[in-house]
């Protein structure tokens, strides 16, 4: 007798080969590739090369780094900030992602809109918003003074705390979205089965939802961490003079025309960022989770 309906499934997977030689596609991508090489890739590469070619072929610029107190302090500040921000966004973001996935469609859309709202405003505007809130004559101080709770304004702005708060605010969506996409894919049948077997909601969460959501957590944290490392605008505006981040140090060195040093710092930053992103993309579960982030 006839075999199962295989043909439809068998041929569906193979995309038809259109009769165009590989030359066609190459011509299509050539303009962009050439453009990016000339105006982006080669400039960045040339700049990075300064770290090893000045004044002659040397690795001295890198060798100097581990002993450089300025670099070490900046590195420590950057890593600490990134860590704090990463943990902060995940702690605050997890409940929101959970709520977004569990709620009725109407509520979900509202939460999504609020989560995406920061996306729709430039980093500059968001940083300014925190300056407004935290400044010496900013809104929080004004409110506290008016309420009689303080006499002199608190030093909130230009502190590490301000940087942390502002960056958490800006990076929260990047933690929430990959997590939400992973949570959404958890089969509801698993949760019902667990409940049917006698697990209370807290148990169901702790033993089923939480473990299954870990790839999303990991993806979100990696993403936030990488983005935090390279942050410039926000720390520059709301951070203190002692809270210099790596990107700010790089900018300062460029202003001083200290190219080899700036290039070495940039290369270091780039290497770490690429390594972390590469790590994320290599793990299929994390890669899947990252797909959930669409601007």
């Amino acid at each position, binding site marked *: 007798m006839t075999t199962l309906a295989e043909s439809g499934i068998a041929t569906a997977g193979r995309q038809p080969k*259109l009769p165009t030689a590989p030359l066609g*596609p190459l011509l*299509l991508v050539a303009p962009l590739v050439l453009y990016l090489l000339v105006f*982006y890739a080669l400039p960045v590469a040339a700049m990075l090369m300064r770290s090893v070619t000045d004044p002659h072929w040397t690795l001295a610029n890198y060798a100097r780094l581990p002993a450089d107190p300025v670099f070490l302090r900046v590195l420590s500040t950057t890593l600490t900030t990134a860590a704090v921000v990463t943990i902060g966004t995940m702690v605050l973001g997890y409940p929101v992602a959970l709520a977004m996935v569990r709620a009725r469609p109407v509520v979900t859309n509202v939460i999504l809109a609020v989560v995406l709202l920061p996306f729709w405003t430039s980093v500059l505007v968001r940083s300014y918003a925190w300056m407004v*809130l935290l400044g010496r004559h900013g809104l929080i101080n004004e409110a506290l003074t008016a309420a009689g709770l303080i006499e002199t304004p608190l030093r909130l702005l230009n502190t590490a705390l301000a940087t942390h708060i502002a960056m958490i605010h800006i990076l929260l*969506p990047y933690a929430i979205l990959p997590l939400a996409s992973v949570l959404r894919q958890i089969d509801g049948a698993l949760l019902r089965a667990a409940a049917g077997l006698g697990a209370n909601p807290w148990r169901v969460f702790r033993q089923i939802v939480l473990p299954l959501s870990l790839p999303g957590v990991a993806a979100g944290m990696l993403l936030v961490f990488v983005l935090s490392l390279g942050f*410039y605008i926000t720390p520059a505006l709301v951070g203190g003079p002692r809270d210099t981040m790596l990107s700010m140090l790089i900018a300062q060195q460029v202003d001083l025309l200290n190219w080899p040093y700036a290039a070495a710092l940039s290369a270091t930053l*780039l290497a770490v*960022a690429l390594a972390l992103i590469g790590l994320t993309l290599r793990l299929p579960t994390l890669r899947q989770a990252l797909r959930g982030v669409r601007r």
Partner: protein
Amino acid sequence: MKAMRAGGAAIVTLVLLFLAAPILIVVIVSFSSAAYLSFPPPALSLRWYRVYFGSSEWLVPTGLSFGIAAAVVVLSTLLGTLAALGIGRLPPALRAPIAALSLSPLVVPGIVVAIGVYYAYSRYGLVGNPIGIVLGHTCLAVPFVVTSVSANLAGLDRRLEQAALGLGATPLAAFWQITLPLIRPGILVGALFAFISSFDELIVSLFLSGTGAITLPRRIWDDLRFALDPTIAAVSTLTIAVTLVVLGSVHLARRRSERLRIANVGLPE
């Protein structure tokens, strides 16, 4: 359990407030009549908007930002759409590296891109020059176009183009009459994101604007270093409005593309 649920809802609400409040406060402050920051504002007024619209120091950078963004849209849409079409048809070996190159501006830390292009462009008189900014912004905008058009292409049934060829259309005619109309939503979405990415861009602009090409974000930045002028609140609100309009259009374009994508499902018998 109810307590946990209420507690959870409270936490979520607080976090959402945390997300939304600062921006809403900026918008409200922009309408404040006071010269100092206070919340709630003593009275509503448009004085800061009047300052903005009456000052060439604000309007010129605004116009420049719009102009640059428009140029970036044209350039990045052209390059990005062609590239997305090509990437989809490349053999897998070539596809990965070229796609990686096209999307890398999103992954490389902004400061590295900024000083990299500054390093090179300064040698060719492209600093303090709007053209230099356009060239730089295009690199950052292109990934949005490539991603958007590629996503659209992926959802497209390639057999449609094959059917067109079988019905007598030359490859060019098949592209023009079949593929292009179907990827128009993707191109539009990409173009809109390209616009926002350029209009709001600061890091690269900081280095490339010099003294001759001050963009709006650069102008805001300069002002912020020296004063917390409520005018900035008005400008910020205006940029938020522009972004919302653009993103609203994106939403509409996406919905139209969805309708076309489910076309083949059809009605039940």
